[in-house]
């Protein structure tokens, strides 16, 4: 029997499976976006439709909604694989587990993060954002949502073995999201004042690099604990 040792094969297989499954049950892709949209609709209803106020609140609203909607998919990230035993097969593979985990996190971002980024122009319209702020929002979401997926996956990995892990997971993960929230909203804020916001983007990028390197290790040790 031929054995070919290709990290790319593993990564793409893991990633493709999750994306394929998500496309088969469209709800998984559509629901977070709908949730995001509804949360954004709630804010003008709660604080009033005055355009100036909305534009000022927009970065915060968009980012809080993004945090919450990525949380929706996180609980499912490892749950199905844990329940049907695929996780054990992934651990008992000769490939390094962090790489497998990287594939799953990337898939999660493709399913929940990327659609948000693509839909941003629509949300920006609803919240009266100007084009400068729109560019900033897209950029921060592009850098920030993968970061959310990575950090969130640590919480998901730790709680996947628990019956009611969902609420606990948000408790563990949300405090860790705070830096992302601060720098991302501040970047959008700065852009509305027509100032240079590359500093905030650089920090987000640096955090993303750190997360890509270190989070898969944390996630895989968390998964090993959950499976044991």
């Amino acid at each position, binding site marked *: 029997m031929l054995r070919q040792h290709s990290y790319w094969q593993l990564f793409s297989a893991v990633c493709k499976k999750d994306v394929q499954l998500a496309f088969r049950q469209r709800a998984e892709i559509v629901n977070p976006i709908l949730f995001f949209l509804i949360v954004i609709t709630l804010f003008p209803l709660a604080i009033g439709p005055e355009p100036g106020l909305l534009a000022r609140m927009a970065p915060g609203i968009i980012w809080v909604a993004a945090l919450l909607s990525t949380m929706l998919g996180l609980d499912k990230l490892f749950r199905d694989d844990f329940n049907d035993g695929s996780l054990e097969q992934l651990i008992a593979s000769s490939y390094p587990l962090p790489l497998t985990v990287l594939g799953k996190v990337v898939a999660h971002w493709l399913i929940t993060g990327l659609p948000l980024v693509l839909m941003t122009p629509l949300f920006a319209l609803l919240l009266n954002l100007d084009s400068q702020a729109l560019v900033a929002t897209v950029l921060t979401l592009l850098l920030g949502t993968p970061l959310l997926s990575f950090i969130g996956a640590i919480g998901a990995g730790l709680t996947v073995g628990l019956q009611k892990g969902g609420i606990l997971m948000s408790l563990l993960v949300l405090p860790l999201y705070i830096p992302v929230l601060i720098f991302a909203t501040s970047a959008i804020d700065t852009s509305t004042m027509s100032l240079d916001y590359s500093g905030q983007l650089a920090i987000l990028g640096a955090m993303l690099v750190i997360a890509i390197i270190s989070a898969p290790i944390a996630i895989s040790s968390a998964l090993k*604990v959950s499976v*044991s």
Partner: protein
Amino acid sequence: MWKWLHPYAKADRAYQLCNTLLPYFAVITVVCMLVGWVWGLAYAPADYQQKDSYRIIFIHVPSAILSMGAYSSMAIAAVIALVWQLRNAELAVIAIAPVGACVTAIALITGAAWGKPMWGAWWVWDARLTSELILLFLYLGVLSLYHAFEDKKAAGRAASILAIVGVINLPIIHFSVEWWNTLHQGATITKFDTKAIDSSMFWPLMVNIVAFAGFVGTVTLMRLKNEILQREKHRPWVRQLLNRG
């Protein structure tokens, strides 16, 4: 490191070590706590600006320092637990967490009680208070994760992983909150300029810091003993403790 730790990897030896250390910690705590509180409350001079309200510093600052200190020692224990597979270190993580959470809660409450007369509001989104609040969330996360697991072995390791993730994030959170604070409030209101502190206030503060450290140490040791007993319940050496009274 390993050679030195190895004898204490055995649970009964670790238990005995706790027992030997405990009296020292307890004595230091009681003495320093008494001296520190009486000195701070009654003998230290009043601040010329904040008058007597500043006396809250004698518990606010020690608890804030210890909340960070306890978290870092918890993370160190977590690293030892995961790298050297030392189960006693896992238990130490779980022993420290509730103590750290209590100290953090004290720092928050005293901060609020100090903020009311100084700023006119119980809660101000001051950078230090905000990071302290997030620190409390991190502690509570570790605790609730530990208690959510039925299998305590897995629970200890999961809590250790979370503690390490938290300690990596803590500086980032701290930095980001500080940065956010200066961005939104212009000049931050500093409660107390520590450099300008007079020695008549500095020494009682030091005594109180030692007292808090001693307290955290004492209760951690007590809780560590409990955790060891709980885990080793069925071992003969625990039975022998019964006969000894």
